[in-house]
């Protein structure tokens, strides 16, 4: 354990909110009550909700203590595969908090909201340049929301050609959101297995692509961290039958400045600003899932569109073929500000360098750990590498055991048991913002865990030992759900 940065320190217990406080306390600074009271008809009125009354110090200590039970990117390396947990620059948070941007009403007249509209217009342009696509919408609020938007665009495209298709091809390595998003449009997902090399073969696609199939949803680089080398040929097969190619851009962090999604044959692509463009993940959101399309699909994008004329920006509803609205207003504007700030800070060379280093870090980990863990696809990887628990499972140690033990060493575990095509998968995405010495520590920790798996397996089965709680009873939680106190 000499290389471990995981240790224990004094953290404090904290009760539930409603186990604290005293009736009559308040942590809110009330403005003067300067008008007469107008009580509601008692038929409509209530005494208000049963909330605890807390003072400002009660509230501050409560959430400060809770925060200390958490692990974030700012705490340490968070190599959660497919989630791109890179460093989230502090300056970008500050920019999103600027008074004029954070305090703006979404229905302000155009001449009162030029700053926000200009930023959105420019961000759409930056994203189309980075992806090699032709047009973008920023409206989707998360990646899965972007997938739904993209599927609706494809649905509208087929409808405009008088063709009602019913199926969509989804590889077995896809994120679960892909089939779920397609199903919302009424498409039946057709699963296709990847080849022995971990990528799609043109033959497998040709075998299922027909004129009743709306297209394909492909993740490239895929969830095994591999580049879909046959993508151009696959796109050709799909296009020939009148289908459209949807790319899940969750893994765009591997290929900025290197790949053109347009050249690759992609018609629709969603991005995750909270992955590739460094906006924080916020315990699970808010994210932002812009969708980029080729020219022939631009007319279907959600409304309103941001337009520019002689240096004046406006919102336009003049898009008769649009799929409609996906969000009450324009999407997660505050998240867009952070992504915009990131892109303007990085520039072209910085973004390309980020992708190169993300890929370097992943390949370095892959090479240094492949003697210790089974590597099902031993090929150059992109931004993440996927191991299996084949070697350790012989000694009845699972991926879960190893993941839990990593916490004791001071690391967030990788994504586990995904993609489903790898047994006991450990999906490691270090991102470019981890230094060589952090990565070396991570590698040493995993090597040490592999040794422990042989010498003292019980240590792993009982892990983690250092966090505030140990493994929790998830079966009981689901059997008798207690969702509120």
């Amino acid at each position, binding site marked *: 354990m000499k290389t471990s940065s995981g240790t224990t320190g004094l953290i404090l217990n904290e009760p539930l909110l409603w186990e604290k406080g005293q009736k009559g306390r308040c*942590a809110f600074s009330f403005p003067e009550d300067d008008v007469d009271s107008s009580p509601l008809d008692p038929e409509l009125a209530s005494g208000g909700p049963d909330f605890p009354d807390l003072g400002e110090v009660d509230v501050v200590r409560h959430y400060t203590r809770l925060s200390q039970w958490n692990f974030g990117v700012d705490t340490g390396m968070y190599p959660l595969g497919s989630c791109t947990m890179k460093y989230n620059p502090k300056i970008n948070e*500050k920019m999103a908090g600027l008074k004029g941007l954070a305090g703006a009403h979404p229905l302000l007249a155009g001449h009162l909201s030029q700053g926000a509209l200009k930023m959105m217009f420019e961000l759409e342009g930056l994203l189309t340049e980075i992806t090699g696509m032709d047009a973008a919408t920023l409206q989707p609020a998360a990646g899965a929301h972007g997938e739904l938007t993209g599927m609706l665009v494809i649905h509208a495209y087929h409808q405009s050609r008088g063709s009602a298709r019913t199926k969509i091809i989804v590889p077995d390595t896809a994120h679960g959101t892909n089939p779920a998003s397609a199903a919302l449009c009424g498409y039946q997902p057709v699963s296709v297995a990847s080849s022995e090399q971990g990528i799609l073969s043109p033959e497998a696609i040709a075998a299922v692509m027909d004129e009743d199939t709306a297209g394909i949803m492909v993740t490239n680089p895929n969830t095994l961290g591999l580049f879909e080398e046959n993508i151009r040929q696959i796109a050709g097969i799909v296009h020939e039958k009148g289908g459209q190619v949807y790319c899940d851009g969750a893994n765009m962090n591997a290929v900025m400045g290197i790949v053109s999604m347009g050249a690759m044959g992609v018609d629709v692509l969603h991005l995750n600003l909270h992955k590739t463009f460094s906006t924080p993940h916020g315990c699970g959101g808010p994210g932002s899932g812009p969708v980029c399309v080729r020219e022939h699909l631009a007319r279907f994008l959600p409304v309103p569109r941001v337009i520019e004329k002689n240096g004046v920006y406006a919102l336009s509803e003049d898009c008769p073929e649009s799929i409609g609205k996906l969000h009450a207003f324009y999407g997660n504007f505050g998240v867009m500000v952070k992504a915009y700030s990131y892109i303007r800070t990085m520039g072209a060379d910085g973004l390309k360098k*980020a992708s190169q280093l993300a890929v370097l870090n992943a390949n370095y980990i892959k090479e240094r750990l492949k003697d210790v863990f089974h590597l099902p696809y031993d090929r150059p990887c992109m931004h993440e590498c996927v191991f299996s628990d084949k070697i350790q499972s012989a000694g009845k140690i699972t991926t879960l055991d190893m993941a839990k033990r990593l916490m004791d060493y001071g690391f967030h575990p990788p994504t586990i048991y995904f993609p489903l095509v790898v047994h006991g998968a450990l999906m490691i995405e270090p991102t470019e913002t981890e230094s060589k010495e952090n990565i070396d520590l991570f590698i040493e920790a995993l090597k040490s865990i592999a040794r422990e798996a042989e010498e003292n397996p019980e240590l792993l089965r009982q892990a983690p030992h250092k966090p*505030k709680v140990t493994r929790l009873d998830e079966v009981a939680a689901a059997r008798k759900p207690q969702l509120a106190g």
Partner: protein
Amino acid sequence: MRYLPHTPDDIAAMLRVTGAGDLDDLFSTIPLNCRRKKDLNLPEPLTEWELKAHMNALSEAMAVAPDYQVYMGAGSYEHFIPETVPCLIGRSEFVTAYTPYQPEISQGTLQAIYEYQTLTARLLGMEAANASIYDGASALAEALLMAARITRRKKVALSRLIHPMYRRVVRTYLEPGGHEIVELPYLEDGRTDLSLLDAIDDLAAVAVQSPNFFGCIEDLKTAATRIHGQGGLMIAAFTEPLAYGILKNPGDQGADIACGEGQSLGIPQAFGGPALGMFASRMKYVRSMPGRLVGKTLDREGRKGFVLTLATREQHIRREKATSNICTNNTLCALAAAVYMASLGGTGIHKLAAMNRDKAEYLKKALKEAGFSVCFEAPTFNEFVVKFPAGFEKTYLRLMDQKIVAGLALAPYYPELSEHYLLCVTETKTRQDLDALVKEVSK
């Protein structure tokens, strides 16, 4: 680049391990025809200081308080946000964590969300709330889809007094799946005409917003009784949850699902997002609910702890058969709402809600006395509709030049309501502000 820690020596040493000659070699598996032909054409990178100047200029090109007095609500509300809210949710351990997949090192998020679920359920009079949906509009769309799943029916009824943009989002979500949407008209008093409900068969649900888009408080109880009579579900929508600080909650009035926008609860307006889709239902429907849920349990040593639960509803397990495609939601916004609700407390939220109502009533009365018509008679919370005389648009534009936004013109959303404006008053406006507004619109 300050976010990239690699020195040239680091890169050289790491490349040696991978066997690649240089960084470009790492991408050898990418066919040439997939690659960019030219370098990215992006603006030159900005320093931290240049970025600040650039963003400040954008920020200054916006009309916001305190320079501007904005009397617009319509789904986005200006409320005072205690400094504790951004300060606490801005802690790195919250901001830079992801979905709590590893509960042992995510207990902070998990307990906070369990508490958010509890406060939300109590506010709305429901038994279970999820960890959030994107916004009020997508929450309503998800609620209607949930009702359709539960009842196995395809037709839903929507009040025309639900936020017009929410109704558009509902169409986007529901129509491709073959759902039928019926809109219920409104009565002269500014509430939904529920009499039509009895004439429509096979409804999965009726959705009514209260306070509605005109600010009027709806009769949710009657809506619930009628829809339950024909086996459908009652969905109570909202854009201004603060109202439930003084109003009877949706659960008490028979709603099966309550959903809406939580921006009002300590979240900046931010030009419309990120916001907070609040979503709650009766416990018996929880297994049909979309989104993440946090539940209480014990660890191996019998200590209390929290985990994500009922995941078998979700896309990563059920794939195309999931209750929703949602994955990333708006948790940090839910956390903001929890800190805000905790800061107000039961006593405070009642007092603040009453203050919003009182100030809005003050303006309503003063405008009436000044001779303007307050068209809808039903009681309101902090928004109401005023009919100004023909040609008011000129006055509206003049006021904008004086940095006052005198409400939202309703005609673009309700063509029959020309010269009608929706005004919103919150605790941020003083009596002096309101008197000045009345004087200016009367000029």
